[in-house]
């Protein structure tokens, strides 16, 4: 009865970092910049851990697609309690064209190979804000999807999920297997403790390439340009009410 979960984790620029645009205006500076696990993925790992502690799940496999540094993200997830990891290696120079469609294909393939019951992802990554991977993965697998999950419960027939939608909260029921994506209020993730960090070093991580999974890496989207938001203009101090009224008239805001 105990389920197997595949959790996807992405290594992103840390949320607290001030983003700078590259001189070629095709992306942002990532060199030497602090990276960490996508916060929504932390929530996904935490949810898988809670299911494991509730004995609903007996194995958590964490997967991350990226360059060599993606291993740090996998180790963090292992330190939070995941059992083993899969590192899908993407060379650094291909990261710019590695897009959600490719991730979905990788995850779908792995979900089938590992025979998992749940694919658990973060609802979106804070660098591209795409919010596509969970949905596309479900579609490729032809599995039901419970995205923007703020509560997940096991039922006899499968899962009951409360989703955060614009109008409020929506409750759905799905069968298993299913693809889920974690929203902010699903849980508060635990911190990795030193003993668990040490244990994580001994856990198995398997490396592979997208080609090994039969995934074609050709990009579908081309980034045309990346630009800073417009610089805020200086305000104008007015000396008195008459001046204010005159300026408003000049700018066409007042007809009086």
């Amino acid at each position, binding site marked *: 009865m105990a389920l197997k979960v595949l959790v996807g984790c992405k290594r992103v620029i840390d949320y*607290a970092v001030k983003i700078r645009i590259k001189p070629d205006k095709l992306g942002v500076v990532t060199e030497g910049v602090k990276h960490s696990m996508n916060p929504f993925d932390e929530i996904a790992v935490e949810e898988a851990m809670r299911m494991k502690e509730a004995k609903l799940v007996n194995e958590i496999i964490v997967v991350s697609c990226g360059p060599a540094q993606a291993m740090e993200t996998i180790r963090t997830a292992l330190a939070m309690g995941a059992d083993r990891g899969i590192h899908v290696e993407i060379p650094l120079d291909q990261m710019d064209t590695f897009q959600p469609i490719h991730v979905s294909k990788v995850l779908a393939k792995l979900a089938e190979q590992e025979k998992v019951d749940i694919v658990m992802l973060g609802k979106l990554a804070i660098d591209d804000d795409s919010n596509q991977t969970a949905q596309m993965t479900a579609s490729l697998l032809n599995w039901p999807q419970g995205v923007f999950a703020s509560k997940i419960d096991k039922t006899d027939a499968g899962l009951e999920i409360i989703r955060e939608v614009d109008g409020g909260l929506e409750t759905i029921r799905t069968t298993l297997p299913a693809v889920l994506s974690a929203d902010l209020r699903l*849980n508060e993730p635990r911190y990795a403790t030193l003993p668990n*960090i040490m244990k994580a070093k001994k856990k198995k991580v398997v490396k592979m390439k997208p080609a090994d999974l039969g995934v074609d890496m050709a990009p579908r989207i081309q980034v045309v340009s990346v630009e800073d938001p417009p610089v805020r203009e200086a305000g104008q101090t007015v000396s008195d009410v008459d001046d204010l009224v005159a300026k408003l008239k000049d700018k066409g805001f007042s007809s009086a």
Partner: protein
Amino acid sequence: MRGLPQLLSRAKRVRVGFSASEPVLAIQAGILQPDKFTQKFVQIRGLKSSKVRSQAPLTAVDNTDSGKQLKQELEAIVGPGNVSSGESVVLQHGQDEGPHQGKSPDIVVFPSSTEEVSEICKICTKHNIPIIPYGTGTGLEGGISAVDGGVCVNVSKNMNKILQIHQEDFSAVVQPGISREMLNQEVRADGLWFPVDPGADASVCGMCATGASGTNAVRYGTMKENCLNLEVVLADGRIIHTAGIGSRPKKSSAGYNLTSLFLGSEGTLGIITSATVCLHAIPESVAAAVVGFPTVQNAVDTVVMTLQCSVPMARMELLDEVQMKACNEYSGLSYPETPHLFLEFHGSESEVESQTETVRDIAADNDGGEFQWAVQQEDRTKLWTARHRAYYADIALRPGCRSLTTDVCVPVSALPDLVTATKADIAEHGLVGPMVGHVGDGNFHTMLLFDPADPEEFRKCKEVANKMARSAIALGGTCTGEHGVGQGKMVLLEEQFGKDGIDVMRQIKGALDPQQLMNPGKVFSRN
């Protein structure tokens, strides 16, 4: 807008007079024209640099030659964008989060390096101008108030890097712009944390300056136990390292303990430009518990017995019934309105379980009520949010009021009597004073609420606070457990140490700051 209430209330108090600060305030309130004032000022005081510092601060900086010269000299060090004499800027830099009216400095500078801080101090020493270090402005005792005007050195704005993190050595080196929450965010991924947590998200270096402490002190210590080394700039510009250059061993017998000297010196001996602090391992397992008691005595007895059983408690916080009511109303909770203990246990899973059992039994022996406890992160956060929002919950009890927060610390055995006597005193004076205590250290705070427009009420609060501090001293405690002396407790400090004790402090100050420029008017008086 921060500072506006102060500005307006000052405007009401203006009268044309010769004392140093009021004309400054009048200018700031836009009531006196700088020209008339400057003439009068130059005539009476004479703005000249001399070894004997005139009582007058440098005023109307942009309108006097010496003021402009000073600004230029400072701009040459830090760059023109990093010097300001703007009204709102100086106002903000003279007022902390306490109830005391702060005085604005004349100029604020924003250095970007220790060397720049050193050059600034040299300039101020040359012109005999007071120097006030500024971190996050979250102090409660008026420590940043520029009583004689001068130059406020804001070391947090541009000096905001974590310089080093040593995971295996459990230490980090930070600049003044790094707050405790920022440091925690940074080291979290390595399984480490920085445990000193005063209410505000204060600058770590600022916490060294005030000798800060928080809810975890009972197990992890205060700033004093968690600081290995300080880089300090003295009034004359010399840069020293209190434990040795680049030193960060866990212990040392080398030379005088200068780290201890500067820790808690509240900016009166030098400016802290970096701090080497201790980190700790994030506990494997954490449990939080809340239990109510019929009386404060019951709660405190539970604490004393728990400590006597050597339970390694991570947090023991006492909230009295007034505080519980405030928390209920503010955060929409439904605790019974009786004194409560908020507890936290750290350790391995089995350790936490057995500690919780022990304390549950002790609490029951002392007529404790329902023992609620939680292990999940968000449930624990919920329990602790009520405690961390205590201050704002108190302010919400009487909207528009402010709080005089007391801060005495006594040996734990003396706590029950002091708390009971204090509550009686508060009731006698007709005040509202919710109580929150780091009861494991024998340290507690009362938030004495007062209407800022009612000086009589403030006076009563002061009376209660002073009486409490004197009782604490008489019981073998201290007039300030963690907030520092600032301006408000200078008299109490003298009572606690006696004349000879204070004279030694004066001698040390005289040796390190002969011109008396470093944060004047704080901790103890000149003579």
